[in-house]
């Protein structure tokens, strides 16, 4: 088909569209995230002794770190479905932020000195359970981001899925903080890392197929 014929057909097919609004997408994602958090409290799986938990330094560290990572990566992920947006720089800053959060957590508690102490601190049956719950809590934000991705026009099919996975995982972990009974920084870094890493990996592998256009 000649270019002119295609132009004629596309013109014939033209219908008014409402331009995508960044803030509308941000509002939708915020609503979904807040609803998930509210649901956690509504079903009663959040800590019963929340006042006491909030006074612990590791709780503050978890809330601030995961909240920051979730908000910043979520905003960048939403922006990255614009064709002309480059996520390269913001992604580097996010990696740096994650590293700072992990390192700062390591200073919050005494590290075990021997292998037996590490194994005890990791408590793998509970850890696997925590990681699984983080994955579960990441599904809703990841699905919402995948829909945004499909509707948008991302041109970087490596970084956009990575950012989306990171944002969904960070939000899942942030919500889980309010139900997680563990405080040991090593346990948190390892098992939250496993849960979040799995979500990010799945997003990196699956979302490019959804996002291709």
């Amino acid at each position, binding site marked *: *088909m*000649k*270019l002119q014929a*295609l*132009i*004629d*057909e*596309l*013109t*014939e*097919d*033209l*219908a*008014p*569209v*409402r*331009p*995508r609004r*960044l803030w509308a997408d941000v509002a939708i994602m915020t609503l979904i995230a807040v609803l998930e958090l509210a649901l956690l409290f509504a079903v009663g799986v959040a800590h019963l002794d929340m006042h006491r938990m909030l006074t612990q330094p590791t709780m503050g560290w978890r809330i601030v770190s995961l909240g920051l990572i979730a908000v910043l990566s979520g905003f960048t992920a939403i922006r990255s*479905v*614009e*064709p*002309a947006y480059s996520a390269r720089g913001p992604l580097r800053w996010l990696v740096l932020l994650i590293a700072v959060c992990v390192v700062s957590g390591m200073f919050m508690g005494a590290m075990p000195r021997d292998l037996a102490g590490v194994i005890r601190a990791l408590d793998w049956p509970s850890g696997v359970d925590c990681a699984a719950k983080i994955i579960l809590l990441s599904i809703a934000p990841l699905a919402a981001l995948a829909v945004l991705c499909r509707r*948008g*026009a991302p*041109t970087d099919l490596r970084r956009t899925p990575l950012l989306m996975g990171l944002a969904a995982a960070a939000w899942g972990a942030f919500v889980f903080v309010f139900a997680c009974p563990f405080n040991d920084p090593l346990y948190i870094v390892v098992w939250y890392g496993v849960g979040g890493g799995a979500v990010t990996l799945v997003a990196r592998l699956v979302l490019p197929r959804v996002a291709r*256009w």
Partner: protein
Amino acid sequence: MADDHWGALMVAAQTGDAAAYRRLLIEVGSWLQSYYSRRLPSSMVEDAAQEVLLSVHAKRHTYDPAQPFGPWLAAIARYKWIDRLRALKDSVTEELPEELAVRDHGEAVQTAHVLEMLLGRLRPAQASAIRLVKLEGLSIKEAAEQLGQTISLVKVNIHRGLRELSALAQEESHEASGPDR
């Protein structure tokens, strides 16, 4: 690139102004042909320009009127260019076998069978669009009516379906020419 001028035309197109849209597509089409003529073999330029126009059409809601049009278009053109390069890299140039010139009814039947099998592995919307337009000879418009899809969607389905079909055919031929066990 006439950024502001094209941006204004796109904003008008988003509200349904067909005249502005036609003008935009004509100007963008000629810019795309010049863009791809420096980056792709001449036989691929027209197809690449058409693919971008289809993408501009399908993703026109993602253009933010507050932003310049040029970078938006350039990002789409570059994305599609990389896609093409990847396809070029993946496609294998093979010498045609001599037997290909021999008329053989059995071969034709077998080819039709293989084609049907490959079509069966595509998404139904893509397979139906290819069957109607490429095998049964219907026009895009007729196929769109029959399938209940928009014209641009039929084109996209044909385009993507053919690309996938070619990848599947390559996969099949690799398997068939693999070492004997």
